[in-house]
């Protein structure tokens, strides 16, 4: 059985995730949505820490919170016009959205429950050290990620090229 502290932490993190993500998609102000997203991302980073994946948590904070959300904020500022920052949601789309979301939740939730125990204990494990992570990243053997690493670099390069082409004025 886990410690009370971790249970409390779990509850807090889970609540934060749920609440902020709900807020992020329901708030009318787009800038607030970005802010709630930021909180959700922090909560996710907390989850990674809880799972002992410190590196992952760090990356999450650095890339998402540090990069993507800032990008969002800039783009919001770029594209928003005065007096146009709040939007109305039609009830029809709300119904559609809830149907899809609930169906998704129900079906995949049922599938999950049927297979995995919700209250499984966390197996004891050494957290992967930075060195291990780095070695796997550069390895070519089983469990090595050199090829994906190279491939994703090509992907990022392509996205940069694409982004530049699209975003530049001419």
């Amino acid at each position, binding site marked *: 059985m886990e410690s009370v502290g971790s249970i409390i932490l*779990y509850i807090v993190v*889970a609540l934060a*995730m*749920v609440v902020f*993500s*709900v807020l*992020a*998609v329901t708030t009318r102000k*787009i800038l607030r*949505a970005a802010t709630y997203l930021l909180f*959700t991302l922090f909560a*996710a980073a907390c*989850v*990674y820490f809880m*799972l*002992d*994946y410190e*590196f*992952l948590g760090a*990356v*999450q904070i650095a*890339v*998402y919170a540090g*990069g*993507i959300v800032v990008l*969002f904020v800039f*783009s*919001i500022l*770029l*594209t928003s016009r005065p007096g146009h920052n709040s*939007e109305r*949601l039609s009830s029809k*789309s*709300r119904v*559609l*959205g*809830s149907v*899809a*979301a*609930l169906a*998704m*939740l129900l079906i*995949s939730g049922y599938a999950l429950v049927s297979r*995995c125990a*919700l209250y*499984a204990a966390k*197996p004891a*494990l050494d957290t992967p050290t930075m060195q*291990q*992570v780095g070695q796997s990243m550069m390895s070519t053997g089983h*469990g090595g*990620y050199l090829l*994906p690493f190279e491939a*994703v670099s090509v992907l*990022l390069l392509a*996205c940069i090229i*694409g*982004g530049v082409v*699209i*975003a530049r004025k001419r």
Partner: protein
Amino acid sequence: MLLVPAMIMFCCGVYGFITRRNMIAILISLELMLNAVDINFAVFNRYLWPEATEGMFFTLFAIAIAAAETALAIAIIINLYRSAKNIDVRDLNKLKY
């Protein structure tokens, strides 16, 4: 256990995608969905298959991909904004039927 909030997060993303009109907001919803998937991978790795780190690495790469996606999407949206002065997704209806 941590899957529940992740799934809820995913569904929130779905809900947001379908209901929001602002494209940036839709992108935000997409981020939620991608994050939920990331969490899933991490949780599965940690709880079910702790002896290897495949899920964690997947998450790692997925974050990178998500960043690229977002950047490109924002570039396209801004470009659209330039020509249409509008980023309401409902107004993207010139191409239909």
